[in-house]
């Protein structure tokens, strides 16, 4: 009986602790920021320089804001991280990717966009930051019901 209770308590504790453990490597403050500037500040990104070496491939007009395909690639040597922000989304920070061990600074993903907005990509190379922006027009938003 006692062992059973201990097992149950243990299981309950594990369930309680699990979300916290999972959230350890998630930049909660940056993802919760309501403006792109605040999100970047929270990530420690300061004065990114505009760069033509970041390619953002995406449709100019997205018919469905719930699924907007975006392909990003940095040709800046030594790029180790890419950050995607959608300026006008309720929470602008969309995703952040860290590349190591021979991974190329390239990613293709689908994002949701609430309305027409600038999509901003920040590339990190060493201690320097670079940025590129592309506007995507959205005809039907993809955030609400």
């Amino acid at each position, binding site marked *: 009986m006692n062992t059973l209770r201990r097992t149950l308590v243990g299981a309950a504790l594990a369930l309680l602790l699990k979300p916290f453990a*999972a959230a350890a*490597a998630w*930049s909660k403050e940056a993802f919760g920021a309501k403006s792109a500037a605040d999100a970047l500040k929270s990530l420690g990104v300061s004065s990114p320089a505009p760069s033509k070496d970041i390619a953002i491939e995406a449709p100019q007009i997205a018919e469905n804001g*719930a699924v907007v395909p975006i392909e990003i690639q940095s040709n800046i040597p030594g790029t180790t991280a890419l950050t995607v922000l959608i300026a006008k989304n309720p929470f602008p920070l*969309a995703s*952040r990717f860290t590349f190591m061990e021979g991974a*190329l600074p390239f990613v293709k993903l689908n994002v949701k966009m609430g309305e027409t907005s600038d999509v901003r990509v920040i590339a990190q190379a060493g201690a320097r930051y670079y940025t590129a922006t592309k506007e995507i027009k959205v005809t039907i938003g*993809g955030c609400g*019901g």
Partner: protein
Amino acid sequence: MAAGPMKMRATLGNGYTDVRVLMTHPMETGQRKDPDGKLIPMHFIQNLTVKVNGKTVVEAETSQAVSRNPVFTFRVKGGARGDKVEVSWVDTEGETNKTEAAVT
């Protein structure tokens, strides 16, 4: 909704390997309402890890802005047929899932 199946394909390109992975996940934003007008709580994948032959190559932090049933493509330099690729995720509920595939 519980975590659904994942699908992955890793294909050898010219000097690189493309890893294309599909996850089944609702990616709820917390802004949608159910038919009764009640808000559906947030529920989305927060962390994504890509490993090649046991070594972590990409770590991603994702938000509710990623579309439902996310599809990602990553690219790794070099690679050879038979290399083992593993992708795993953790969501806001602490649910996890992973899948493995060999490079073809």
